[in-house]
């Protein structure tokens, strides 16, 4: 289907220096059961194209869901008009922008495609899971659901390049809210567990089998004391590490932020171009990779949306900042090496620098060792609150679940756990990194950025990590 659209456009493409067409077809389904009631099932069949035209030294784009010959021709004309009208006022010249090369294909591996699972079977599973969540009178709301999508894309150019890809996302989730008087507490599972693949990933995550634990913990939190407010050592489990990596490493390393493109919306960065190669971002234990090749992670792909081949790169090597997250256009503007991360959320948005899979590399400690070496501390898991300044420096994050650590052992549960710090110094307090066996793959389908706005899926894998002397506090009381 996408080939036919590309050929249709080729026949009506405008006369110009160069054009590319990115066609995207996505099928998605979201099923949710709340309090035993099947919510409206959302299915979608998205289909559209993004046309980019280079002319007179300028670049313009036009996206359309009108895929007949006249609709495609109109998009080509509109893109050409924008290229010409902004050629003299463009920040980036046509010559600085990448032009995809060659012909290639990439397909995400899948064992059990979500499309093959009968919807009745899924509803039965979710309904049973939902019933397991309602195991206490204090549970006042509860639900279980699954979202999945399959995206096919084809990037073609006037030069004859053609890159076809198929990616897949699957995200099971469940949650329970417990209430007593003016206090409500929620425990959830899966908000950060998006993966690439099919139903085999759901089985690997084991989400449905954890419903009773999730409900029990929501009720436990109601009776728990508020998190104490003091400086202490902090152990973050992989789920919360996902958020910590995302906000205070991923976003500040995005090269388009460093170049100022995002200053009006998502923000700038405390990182400047001169820091690469020498700046100490964290302790020696911190090594961070950009790895679009870990196929179970949600942002794995063969090529980015500008056609650059994706490969693993280290961004932080034993604590030292070495490489930003920037696609070919940003690399040309900044004169820095980068990564294949020019990505668009859909056919209707142009590619910009995004995270893909951004991982903390494993260390040597078991989780038990990380905890055993804490005299006075706290273990936190499952993000529920995130806030960070527009330079990605001063942050405050909150979790659903926490247990105190006393003399090397896990102690009581506390509620409303929060912690805050400064990115530029926080990672230097990292003094323990879990081993490969403790590494977990997570991912979020909803990272927001860009003008016009784009929401995209990103993957993060990490072991548990320990940070020393962090400011920890609780709720309003």
């Amino acid at each position, binding site marked *: 289907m996408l080939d036919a659209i590309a050929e249709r456009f080729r026949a009506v493409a405008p006369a110009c220096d160069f054009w590319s067409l990115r066609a995207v077809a996505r099928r998605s389904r979201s099923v949710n059961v709340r309090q035993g009631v099947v919510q409206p099932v959302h299915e979608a069949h998205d289909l559209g194209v993004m046309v980019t035209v280079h002319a007179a030294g300028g670049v313009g784009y036009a996206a359309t869901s009108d895929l007949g010959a006249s609709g495609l021709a109109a998009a080509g004309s509109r893109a050409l008009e924008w290229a010409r009208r902004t050629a003299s006022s463009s*920040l980036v010249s046509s010559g600085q922008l990448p032009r995809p090369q060659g012909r290639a294909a990439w397909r995400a591996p899948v064992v059990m495609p979500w499309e093959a699972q009968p919807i009745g079977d899924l509803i039965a599973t979710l309904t049973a899971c939902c019933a397991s969540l309602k195991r206490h009178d204090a549970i006042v709301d509860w639900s279980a659901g699954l979202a999945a999508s399959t995206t096919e894309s084809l990037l073609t150019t006037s030069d004859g390049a053609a890159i076809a890809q198929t990616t897949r996302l699957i995200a099971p989730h469940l949650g329970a809210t417990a209430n007593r008087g003016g206090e409500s507490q929620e425990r959830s599972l899966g908000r950060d567990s998006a993966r690439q693949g099919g139903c085999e990933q759901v089985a690997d995550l084991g989400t449905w089998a954890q419903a009773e634990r999730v409900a029990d913990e929501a009720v436990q939190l109601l009776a728990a004391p508020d998190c104490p407010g003091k400086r202490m050592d902090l152990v973050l489990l992989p789920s919360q590490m996902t958020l910590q990596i995302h906000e205070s490493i991923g976003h500040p390393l995005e090269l388009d932020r460093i170049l100022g493109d995002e200053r009006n919306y998502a923000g700038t960065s405390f990182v400047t171009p001169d820091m690469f190669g020498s700046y100490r971002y964290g302790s020696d234990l911190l090594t961070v990779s950009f790895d679009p090749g870990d196929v179970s992670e949600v942002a794995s792909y063969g090529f980015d949306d500008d056609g650059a081949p994706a490969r693993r790169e280290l961004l932080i090597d034993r604590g030292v900042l070495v490489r930003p997250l920037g696609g070919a256009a940003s690399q040309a503007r900044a004169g820095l090496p980068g990564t294949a991360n020019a990505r668009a959320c859909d056919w209707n948005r142009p590619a910009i620098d995004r995270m893909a899979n951004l991982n903390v590399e494993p260390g040597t400690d078991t989780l038990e060792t990380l905890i055993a070496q804490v005299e006075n501390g706290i273990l936190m898991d499952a993000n529920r609150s995130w806030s960070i300044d527009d330079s990605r420096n001063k942050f405050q994050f909150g979790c659903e679940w926490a247990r105190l650590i006393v003399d090397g052992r896990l102690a009581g549960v506390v509620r409303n756990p929060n912690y805050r710090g400064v990115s530029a110094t926080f990672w230097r307090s990292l003094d323990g990194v879990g081993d490969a066996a403790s590494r977990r793959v997570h991912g979020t389908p909803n990272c927001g950025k860009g003008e016009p706005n784009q929401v995209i899926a990103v993957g993060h894998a990490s072991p548990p990590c320990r940070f020393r002397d962090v400011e920890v506090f609780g709720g309003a009381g």
Partner: protein
Amino acid sequence: MSATVRSDEPAAAAAAQRDAFFRLADAVSGALRAGEEFLLRCSGEDSDFVRLNHGRVRQAGAVRQRRLSLQLVADGRSATVACDAGGGDDSDRERLLGLVSGLRVQLAHLPADPHLLFSREALTSSRIEPGRLPDPASAIDRLITLADGLDLVGIWASGLVHRGLATSAGTRAWHSVGTFNLDWSCYHTGDKAVKCAYAGTSWNESVLAARLSEARRTLPVLARSPQRLSPGAYRAYLAPAALDDLLGMCSWGGFSCKAQRTRSGPLLRLHDGAERLHPAVTLTEDHAGGLSPGFTDAGFAKPASVPLITAGSPAGSLVGARSAREFALVPNCAHEAPESLRMDAGDLPAETALHRLGTGLWISNVWYCNFSDRSACRITGMTRFACLWIENGEPVAPLAVMRFDDTIYRLLGANLEALTCEREHVLEAGTYGGRGLGSSLLPGALVGEIALTL
């Protein structure tokens, strides 16, 4: 030279889109079997987007999208599928009719939906207001000329936004509005910038020029050495844009019927009577005063307004169709979060706000708010853009960014000193998935204390 204003062409294009959508609905009607009902929705836009950085064009282009959502109902069961569409021609009709077949198959696997509710009354409406929008390329040329020498970064968005609804009961409703939204910042250095916005339905270049001049006047203050504050409590003035973000957090379940009934909203303690807001706080969902359609996705006409908080006490909630069925209420909104939030004005003339503030923070914008404690409606966030340190009613220095962490019951309760007489109409600049139609009408707020923590 001023930018050319276009008007007739978009109105005719919108009318053609409406007619094409209604023809698609007629085709679906013709394909129904006995006992089947449907709701067909359209969401679309014809937009131009121009992204700017360093006073130059970073990315420029256009997006034309039509999204159809077809809900088929039979025997108390309901299934929905959405798809992108072209211009309402034969291929769209064939695609839509093909989806009907798929929905029939899916319905057989779904149980009856006890919370399903949609209108079976025929609603007829057509609102096409193309506005007086400029040619976007000409407008950008003028902006770049007027901003000469400024480090300007931001986004231009303009064009028509469409919403449509047609049902088997005979509803044929259409809504097209043309808006422009220029959302930008002028930077001094680092993170020091003046945030500006000019949005509306009728373009006036002199307004843009005036706002750029105002930014130029403020920039010298940002050149001063920033004031670094220690954590603690400070007097503060919250400009309407900052208040918009705080109320946006409250809107994250705070006015939702479902969230209230499931005791998961952030205003839980207000609704329980354990907390109160200041008597000057009156909040209303002003459907009639907003840009969003007057009909809901379920085919109900929205009331002109819905009182949410009156004189500091809860007055009502936003009830979507499913909640209406679940809790035996009357639907009054499309989504259970405000789309057109209006806050009553106070009695503080804005021109005297600096003087009344005396010494403290002038908070123009806040950023990245979230809950520290949702049940207590305790919100944290950062100061951003041109937040200033004020001494004796005079701007002294820009503020080095600070984190606040405080409850809405303190900020708009015990610590609220005054709301301004003047209010600002803030039009949503958000474009996730498509251009939004949200807006709010808000005053500024003078607070005796805001807690800064980092």
